[in-house]
């Protein structure tokens, strides 16, 4: 058998093995090299899987050759390969950045641990995405969550410990809800394979157990994806984690949770009577709107840039969830395309904020005032990404907004159209708080001689900024895949 046939397994195994290897090596350079190679290999595998899916459709890989539904199945369809590319791609960009970034933020003897945890986290996120087995999702969720807690706790600020603890509590509650939901589904259907589960659920009608499973999974996953009002853990976690971790989490962790939600909603529950009868769409719509407005408003009043953009993330997750609440191909396209667009945009912002923190010693608005003058490249990069958060044409965010509005128009919901555009006006407010502070104020006297961060920090960040602009102009990759994935998801239900 050729290697190509085993790519789905290798997608997870490579970063998973890199973790213990890097602990054994204990040397920060060697650990970095191992994890970097693993991450780049994972990215290459994800691209190869993307091409395989394009060429020959959905891939079903049987672990240990045990046929599903008895064995564990890895299942790669368009949506899976889209998220795999996104997660591994972001990791491939963030890792080189982290080398120079943790140099400034962590004691050297912790570096190999950082790389170990990063690798584990990557393996967990890729695992959640690729597996077609419900319990496997839970296992990988725990792998990624536990390593995330450690990564956040590594933050230089002592408040990072509280943030990590907060996330630990909330994340554990979420994971518990998820495992209860999966357990209930197993009781009802007798299977853990997602596809099998989806088919068996169709013959079970109106059962209270299914209802409970849906409720538990919804709450658990909403916690992980930080859907308002279950987002309380997110701002602190993003604000106090090491810069590279903030960027990686902002770009991937919540996105993978959204992916899991999409899987359960559309591939498992999608066709069941229970799901169709419940006002799930309305519920998601209300929470999404509340998140868009409340979190954006809160973002307008933050004095720390990391927190400001963290709240902006909660608002943007609102857009993502809003898209899925439409339950239409256009709406889901908006959701999926915004997964990627928001990932590159926010990833870029947090990488740049890390560069700013490295040069200016912090990212509060008071400290970074006038940074347009002393750190022109970083400031301009943040402004460009900020324009994408607003949804200005020519940036990735515009494409997402276009599809969201189109989805609302398709259903004749003009009021929703205005809600979407009004909430993006709030984004103008919080982005312009940064612009005015960076360009209208003079830098602090002690920071007037600061220069832009070195290329090792700026280059990866600028790569994501460039991607933000690129995906705003050429969308054949993002929208093409998103539309295909959305059709697949809905095709499974109808």
């Amino acid at each position, binding site marked *: 058998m050729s290697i190509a046939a085993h790519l789905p397994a290798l997608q997870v195994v490579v970063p998973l093995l890199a973790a213990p290897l890097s602990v054994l090596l204990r040397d920060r350079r060697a650990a970095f090299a191992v994890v970097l190679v693993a991450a780049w290999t994972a990215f290459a595998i994800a691209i190869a899987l993307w091409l395989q899916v394009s060429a020959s459709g959905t891939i079903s890989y049987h672990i240990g050759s045990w046929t599903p539904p008895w064995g564990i199945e890895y299942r790669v369809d368009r949506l899976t390969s889209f998220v795999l590319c996104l997660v591994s791609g972001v990791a491939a960009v963030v890792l080189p950045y982290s080398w120079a970034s943790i140099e400034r933020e962590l004691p050297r003897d912790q570096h190999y641990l950082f790389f170990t945890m990063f690798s584990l986290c990557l393996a967990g996120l890729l695992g959640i995405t690729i597996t077609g087995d419900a319990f496997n999702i839970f296992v990988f969720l725990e792998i990624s969550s536990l390593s995330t807690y450690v990564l956040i706790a590594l933050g230089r600020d002592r408040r990072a410990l509280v943030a990590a603890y907060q996330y630990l509590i909330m994340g554990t509650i979420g994971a518990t809800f998820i495992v209860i939901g999966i357990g209930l589904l197993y009781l009802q259907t007798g299977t853990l394979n997602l596809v099998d589960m989806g088919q068996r659920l169709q013959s079970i009608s109106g059962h209270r157990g299914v209802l409970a499973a849906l409720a538990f999974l919804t709450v658990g996953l909403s916690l992980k994806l930080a859907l308002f009002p279950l987002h309380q853990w997110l701002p602190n976690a993003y604000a106090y984690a090491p810069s590279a971790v903030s960027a990686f989490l902002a770009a991937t962790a919540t996105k993978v949770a959204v992916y899991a939600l999409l899987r359960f909603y559309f591939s498992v529950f999608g066709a069941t009577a229970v799901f169709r009868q419940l006002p799930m769409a309305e519920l998601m719509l209300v929470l999404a709107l509340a998140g868009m407005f409340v979190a954006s408003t809160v973002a307008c009043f933050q004095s720390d840039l990391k927190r400001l953009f963290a709240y902006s993330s909660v608002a943007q997750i609102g857009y993502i969830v809003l898209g899925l609440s439409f339950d239409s191909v256009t709406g889901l396209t908006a959701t999926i395309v915004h997964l990627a667009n928001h990932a590159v945009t926010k990833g870029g912002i947090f990488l740049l904020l890390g560069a700013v923190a490295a040069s200016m010693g912090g990212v509060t608005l008071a400290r970074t005032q006038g940074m347009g003058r002393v750190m022109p490249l970083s400031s301009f990069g943040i402004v460009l990404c900020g*324009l994408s958060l*607003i*949804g*200005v*044409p*020519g940036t990735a965010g515009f*494409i997402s*907004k*276009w599809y969201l*509005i*189109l989805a609302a*128009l*398709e259903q004749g919901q*003009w009021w929703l*159209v*205005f809600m979407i*555009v*009004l909430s*993006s*006006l709030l984004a*103008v407010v919080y982005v*312009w708080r940064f612009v*005015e502070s960076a*360009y*209208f104020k003079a830098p602090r006297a002690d920071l007037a001689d600061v220069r832009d961060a070195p290329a090792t920090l700026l280059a990866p960040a600028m790569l994501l900024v460039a991607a933000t602009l690129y995906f*705003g*102009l*050429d*969308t*054949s990759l993002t*929208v*093409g895949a998103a*539309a295909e994935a959305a059709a697949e998801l809905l095709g499974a239900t109808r």
Partner: protein
Amino acid sequence: MSPTTLIAVTLAVPIIGAVFIAAFHRQPNLREAVTLLTAVLLFTCVIALLPQVLGGAQPALHLLDVLPGLALTFRVEQLGMLFALVASGLWILNSLYSFGYMRSNGESHQTRFYVCFALALAASIGIAYAGNAFTLFVFYELLTLVTYPLVTHHGTKEAQRGGRIYLGLLLGTSMVFLLPAVIFTWKVAGTTDFQPGGILDGQVTGLALAGLLALYMFGIGKAALMPFHRWLPAAMVAPTPVSALLHAVAVVKAGVFCVVKVIVYVFGIDLLAANAGTAWLVPVAGFTILAASVVALRADNLKRRLAYSTVSQLSYVVLAAALLAPLSLIGAVMHIAAHALGKITLFFAAGAIYTAAHKTNVSQLDGIGRRMPWTMGAFAIGALSMIGLPPAAGFVSKWYMLAGAMEASRWTAVAVIIASTLLNAGYFLPVVYRAFFRAPVAGDHDHPHGEAPLLMVLALTATAAGTVLLFFLPDVPLALARQMLTGG
């Protein structure tokens, strides 16, 4: 060079120019030379397409597909040609004027200023040549963003406040009204291409059509239809060359250009004429004309008075287009060119007065015409054009507008135009009268001065001459307007 390539080059010239301007930030003379060269090159590129457009051809360029079925495309038709001619032609004179103004007033960040200016022109050309509403929207937003640093150039609290209003209103209206309108158009018509006769016929009717028209008209905030006009006076905190070229020509003309373009090529004149519900635009534009004139009458700050005069004059174009009569539409198109020349002259004069005499208010201008005869002479010609008196270009456009309104028996519109003519005279003639016929008041602010630097006087004399010239030779704009109406 094929016409298609020429469009690409036209768009690229100001962008490449901006790069070189930025590269020469340490050599001011070279930087200014590059600015001027870029302006001349741009004008050459635009004018090179004129014979073909006059000959009935509409060269097009397909840049790239952004979404499936939705592309950045450019097509040069008559209206876009005229707007591009006006914007790029006046940029040359404005550059000369800027050199004098920025240096005499010791402005800082001059490189940023010229870079943003070049980018603003690139965005304006993008708007002018846009082949569909999507492309138009992209460049419309771009124009707002690149002019923001120009509006807030001074970096003061006041500039920051002005910038907030500017950005808030322009970005706000375009995102909240214009974007949904464009997406809705795409959804119902399956395209956003500008086509003679419009693309919405048979797709939208009745109240929905009136609503869509409202989304477009108020969404195009740059046309400064009340109540979304306040960004224009707020933008006056910018250095005068910005007010002159951008807030008398490029940005505001982009606004009314979009209005005419949408009415003619998206809705189609016949569709709007057949739907009585869309007639609301006439009274709204008429109200803006009169209300803005009343505010201008009471403004003592010269630039503020000019800004409200612009708000009023922009609504002439909207009103004339909304009347949907062929003659008034010709007037609307003509007025884009005529008002541009006249108003840039007035702003040039205001900037020259500020530079030479450090005066900003109308009440300080007693007797200034004796010291600055060229400047105030040009001001007088600009004022005549605003009022609509011969021998200035404003007369021609107003004539067509009135003729169109009478032809269509829209007597309220006729009354509005006549009343506003009187108001225009009421706030422009006193300035001219003070300057030439009142004795200068000896005060402690008074100090000996003559004309502004030569480059500035040269520029404002040229635009004043242009205003007169356009009265005698209005053939090109009129030919373009007529062709636009016949769809050829």
